[in-house]
């Protein structure tokens, strides 16, 4: 792993991370022109109204604004800790702000669009064993909410989700809700570098609350690095790369913790998932008892 000194470690203007490090996809700018929604009628009638501008050509790639997440139940995941939650970006997080980049050269034969199409289509299949990503049946599109069950040890699955913030032919970005381990987003992109195509996962995040920050400090970052490296190696194999290698770069963008957001702990999905795991057998026992009671009543009705 290459540890890059971030703005906090290096003095002077050059301390800002490079475009590649911050960049989530430079080639997104060259993406095909998205179909534009119809121009608002009042703009056509009154073009002098400067406040009414046509939507940008990226309009179709961005999700529409949501206040709180809405989810449909999905097969195979618990699906808790997502409905009604707000999205959280690095501004709303608690811990130090990190920028991480996982990059893999997939060779010259695979086009960036092809790599991203495969990644979108098979996204859950690339996840390491024990973790589950339940997305929409239609794939990964702006505004979709996916439900996650993540293995955190001790037989507990952390139930949370992600929101598809942005998606085009060469990249897609997932943003996290309240209660997720981190507040921020992760962009999956592919671009040509010389003759080769390079795929990348780029994370911009803060731990969401003090407990997660502690967890990230003591092994969480390493675990996350392993998770995304394993995911990308699986993608590499799917794309036919004989020996996929992932280069990881980590930059601390802001070493300050945002104590004003310490209250995020209230939404902590790990804590809630532990309680939900403990409560699950009790709940199902209660359901069974109610069911038996109902059957008993029906049986006695039948007898009379």
């Amino acid at each position: 792993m290459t540890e890059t000194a971030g703005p906090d470690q290096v003095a002077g203007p050059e301390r800002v991370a490079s475009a590649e490090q911050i960049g989530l996809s430079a080639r997104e700018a060259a993406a095909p022109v998205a179909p534009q929604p119809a121009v608002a009628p009042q703009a056509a009638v009154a073009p002098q109204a400067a406040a009414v501008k046509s939507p940008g050509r990226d309009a179709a790639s961005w999700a529409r604004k949501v206040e709180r997440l809405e989810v449909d139940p999905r097969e195979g995941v618990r699906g808790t800790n997502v409905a009604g939650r707000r999205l959280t970006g690095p501004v709303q997080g608690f811990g130090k702000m990190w920028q991480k980049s996982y990059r893999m050269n997939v060779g010259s034969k695979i086009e960036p669009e092809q790599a991203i199409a495969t990644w979108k289509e098979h996204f859950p299949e690339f996840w390491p064993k024990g973790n589950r990503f339940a997305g929409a049946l239609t794939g990964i599109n702006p505004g979709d909410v996916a439900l996650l069950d993540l293995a955190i040890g001790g037989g507990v699955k952390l139930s949370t989700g992600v929101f598809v913030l942005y998606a085009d032919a060469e990249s897609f970005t997932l943003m996290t809700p309240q209660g997720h381990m981190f507040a921020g987003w992760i962009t999956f992109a592919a671009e040509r570098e010389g003759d080769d195509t390079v795929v990348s996962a780029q994370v911009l995040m803060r731990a969401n609350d003090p407990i997660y920050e502690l967890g990230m400090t003591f092994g969480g970052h390493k675990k996350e690095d392993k998770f995304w490296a394993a995911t990308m190696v699986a993608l590499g194999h799917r794309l036919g790369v004989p020996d996929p290698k992932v280069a990881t770069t980590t930059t601390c963008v802001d070493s300050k913790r945002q104590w004003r957001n310490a209250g995020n702990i209230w939404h902590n999905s790990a804590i809630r998932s532990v309680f939900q795991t403990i409560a699950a057998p009790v709940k199902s026992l209660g359901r069974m008892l109610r069911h038996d009671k109902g059957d008993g009543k029906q049986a006695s009705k039948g007898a009379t």
Partner: protein
Amino acid sequence: MGAPVITMDVRRIGDEVAVVDIKGEVTAACEPVLMSAYEAASDGKTSRLVLNFAGLEYMNSGGIGMLVTLLVRANRQRQQLAAYGLSDHYREIFELTRLDEAITIYDSEESALNGVAR
């Protein structure tokens, strides 16, 4: 990586306020341009920085990430960051990513300058 299709001009309004006029495409690729504009705008005693997005033509998730990094730098220098000139679409993106909670959005340059002067 192609050359960024963007220009950023800095205008000083008195000693403490600088306006950055952004024209073109805000993507991760234009990070060096934005950071040089920031350096130019931060000369002297600048305590308030206003970003003019009236000329914004395109922005992707990389561009939003770059604005977050700019925000961190401005916070470190105890500078206030504001924006104006956003179309409804880009204003919605600021709200969706909750960047509007850290960068105050105004409707016009006049209201932005009045707002940051407070």
